[in-house]
């Protein structure tokens, strides 16, 4: 009620008077003289809310108590700031001895001062995290810390002793519930070079996992989230890894039917390229009436070896300038052009 009356009148100067009048009218019947006896109690109770900044108890106009000054005026320069702001708290203008202004500047003026400034209250402040405060935190936490094991002083050693990396995410949110369904996701990462696999097992494993294997980093990544709990997902991930490992070592009967389309990389032996090359060379030799040269001799010859290497390079690595020119050279040598 005091506020509404004050807002109706232009000019800040009248506000204090009006609020005083209204306050007197409204509040006076409720007052007892006992109100004054509570004043000493006010100053002695701790209460960051009760900043002691001018509590006006004007009951009658001729008796106006002097306003208690804000705490900032009694602060020593070398006080212990960590006891003023021990934890995260809102900005209290009567506790922070800094002349801060914040907000939209008054016309041809400065931003409003800190008293009653909502902008300063809204923003998070780090008054509780000054360097001396952080030093105190570290000193207190030191008792709970242990040294990093000295044997694990490099990344390679960490990888050698702990080849499997498990990744889980914890979610914190503002509110009364700590549950977040996204927290159940578990990611396992392992390098295949750390697993004991031979050629066949490695190829089979890569075929089994498909997209989860990254060729550039040689990393197998398994992400599990099908169980409701993180522990269950972790166990499932480990189980998957175990099963993959054992299955890739086994050779099934139907694996002998692996055809050329299933091969991961091109092998020249027993390919049509080899057959064609040998065929051509034999015919050349026959037309020149050279004595029967055997297949093995042809295969072992330099030109055929060059041809083989260039074809393998072309098929496996794709067509590059280098590969194409190498192929051209080897063909020319093969056909004696």
């Amino acid at each position: 009620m005091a506020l509404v009356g004050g807002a109706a009148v232009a000019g800040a100067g009248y506000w204090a008077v009006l609020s005083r009048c209204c306050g007197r009218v409204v509040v006076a019947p409720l007052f007892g003289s006992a109100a004054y006896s509570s004043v000493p109690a006010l100053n002695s109770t701790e209460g960051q809310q009760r900043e002691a900044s001018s509590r006006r108890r004007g009951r009658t106009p001729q008796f106006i108590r002097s306003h208690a000054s804000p705490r900032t005026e009694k602060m020593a320069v070398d006080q212990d700031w960590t006891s003023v702001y021990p934890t995260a708290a809102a900005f209290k203008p009567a506790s922070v001895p800094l002349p801060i202004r914040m907000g939209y500047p008054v016309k041809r003026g400065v931003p409003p001062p800190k008293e009653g400034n909502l902008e300063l209250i809204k923003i998070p402040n780090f008054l509780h995290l000054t360097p001396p405060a952080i030093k105190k935190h570290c000193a207190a936490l030191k008792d709970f810390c242990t040294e990093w094991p000295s044997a694990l002083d490099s990344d390679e050693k960490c990888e050698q002793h702990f080849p499997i990396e498990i990744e889980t995410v914890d979610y914190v949110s503002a509110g009364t519930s700590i549950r977040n369904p996204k927290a159940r996701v578990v990611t396992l990462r392992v390098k295949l070079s750390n697993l004991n696999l031979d050629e066949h097992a490695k190829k089979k494993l890569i075929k089994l996992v498909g997209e989860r294997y990254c060729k550039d980093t040689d990393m197998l990544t398994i992400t599990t989230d099908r169980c409701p709990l993180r522990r269950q997902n972790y166990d499932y991930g480990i189980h998957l890894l175990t099963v993959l490992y054992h299955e890739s070592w086994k050779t099934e009967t139907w694996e002998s039917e692996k055809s050329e389309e299933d091969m991961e990389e091109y092998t020249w032996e027993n390919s049509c390229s080899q057959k064609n090359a040998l065929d051509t060379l034999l015919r050349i030799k026959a037309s020149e009436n050279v004595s029967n040269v055997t297949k093995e001799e042809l295969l072992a010859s330099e030109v055929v070896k060059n041809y083989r290497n260039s074809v393998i390079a072309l098929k496996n690595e794709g067509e590059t300038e280098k590969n194409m020119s190498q192929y051209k050279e080897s063909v020319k040598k093969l056909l004696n052009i």
Partner: protein
Amino acid sequence: MTGAAMPTPTVSVPAGNLAGEPGAAERAVEDAFLRRFLYGTFPGILADEAVLKRRANLLVVCAVLARGLPPAKLYFLVGYAKTLLTHFYKCPMRLELQTVPAKVVYKYL
């Protein structure tokens, strides 16, 4: 000249209002109730909209009051508000108050 009113400030850091995070609706309902509750508990002396902050489970209400009540009554109202709200929402609650001699105008239009 009239002063511009501030929009209701709720500083919920960080989650809740992020896309896809749960609990945004519950926080919004809590905020609406809290504002009405404060408006009724501190009759006529709320100088400005209360700022609501949440730090994990802790609910912090920062309010600016005008000096219209004796401190004894204010203490009682503070205790009443805190106890009742902690029991309603089952979370710790902090009420950080500031009193000003007159209502602070945000901006003259």
